[in-house]
C-alpha cells in the first residue's frame, strides 16, 4: 500500500518579535513516498541435456515457471506550504518558493 510520510519541521527567524516587525517562518524537511511493488516474470523454459553412458544425448524441456518479486520502493518528495491559518486572524503570506511565509507581528 502506498503511503506518504511527512517529516517536516518549522522554525521562526527570531525567538521573539517586536510589534510591527516582519516575522518569517521557514519549513524544512521532506516527505517520503513508499510503496510495495510486486512484479511477476516467467523464467523461460529450461533445456536439460542428458548424456547416457553410451553417448546418446537426450534433451528434455522443463516448462517455464512464474517468478514473483516483491520490492519496497522509497522516494523522497519535496514539500511546500499549501496554507497557513492563524487563530488570531493574522495574515500569513507564503513566499513563491513555498518554503517560507511571512506576517507582521
Amino acid at each position, binding site marked *: 500500500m502506498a503511503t506518504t510520510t*511527512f517529516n517536516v519541521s518549522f522554525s521562526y527567524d527570531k525567538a521573539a518579535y517586536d*510589534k510591527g516587525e516582519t516575522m518569517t517562518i521557514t519549513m524544512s524537511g521532506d516527505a517520503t513516498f513508499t510503496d510495495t511493488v510486486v512484479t511477476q516474470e516467467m523464467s523461460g523454459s529450461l533445456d536439460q541435456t542428458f548424456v547416457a553412458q553410451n553417448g546418446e544425448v537426450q534433451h528434455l524441456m522443463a516448462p517455464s515457471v512464474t517468478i514473483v518479486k516483491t520490492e519496497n520502493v522509497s522516494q523522497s518528495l519535496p514539500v511546500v506550504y499549501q496554507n497557513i491559518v492563524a487563530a488570531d486572524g493574522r495574515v500569513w503570506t507564503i513566499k513563491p518558493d513555498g518554503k517560507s511565509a511571512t506576517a507582521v507581528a
Partner: protein
Amino acid sequence: MSLQVTVRASNGATKLYTVPDPVVLATAEPNATTTGAKGTLTTYTGSYTISGSNVLIKDKILNKSIRVTGLNVTFENCRWTASSGWGIDADGASGLKVRNCTIVGSGNSCILTGINFLIEYCDLSGYDNGVMVQDSGTIQFCYIHDLHPGSVGEAHVDGLQMGGGQNGVLIKGNSIRSWDTSCIIMKCDWGSGAPIRNVTIDGNWLRNQPGRSSIAATIYAYSNQASLSNIVVTNNKIEPGYTGSLAYDTTAARNAVTWTNNTHVTTGAVIPKP
C-alpha cells in the same frame, strides 16, 4: 493559540501541522494612547443582537450591551458606553474578535468572550471585571484599568476571570490594573468540576490600581471544584498584592503553575514562585 499549517508534497499528499504562535513582545506597557478606539466614529444604528456570521462592525459608537451569537463577528475601532451586564456578550459564540475598541461602563465584565476569541489593543474599564473568559482564545496588548467605580463594599474586582472550563488561553502583553481581588483569577467555580487547562500568562504588566485598595493576590490559581493544569506564568512584571503575587488553594494547584522570569514591576527583582 497556534498556526494551522497545511503542507503539500509533490505527489499531492497533504498533512496538517499545528505550529506554536510566534512570540510577539509588547515594546512598552499598553496605555490609553496605544489602545482603544481612535479617530472619527459614527453612531451605530444596527441591531444589538448579532446573529449573522463574519459580520464586521467598525468605527462605531455603541450605547448599550451588544449580544453576539454569530460566528466570527469582529468589532474594530468601536467605543461602548454600556451600563448593564456586559459590554459585549458573546456567550457561547465562536470566533469573536475585538480590536482597538474602548469599552467603558458598569456591570459584570466589559467582554464575555465566547470561544476561540481574540481581544487586542482594547481599552477596558468600568465593569467589575475586564474580561470574562469563557474558553480558548487570546487577550493581548490591552489596557485594563479603573474597574468597578462603585463602593468598596460591593467590589470583587478581577482584571481577567476564568471560572472553569477554559482550555487554551493566551494572555500576553497586557497592562492590567486591578484592585480588591486580582489581576487574573483562575478558579474552577463554574459548572460541576470543569477544569482550567493550558493557560499562558506571558509578558504582562500586572499592577494595583492607583488610588484603590490593593489586590489580594496578583494571580489566583484555585482548583476549588475541579483542577488546574499547565498554567504557565512567565516574563511578567508584577506588583504583588497584599498576600503576594500568586495565591493557590492546594499543592496540586500550585504545582500546575510553571513560574519563570517574573519580576517586580518597580524594582525589577526576580519574584520566586510563591
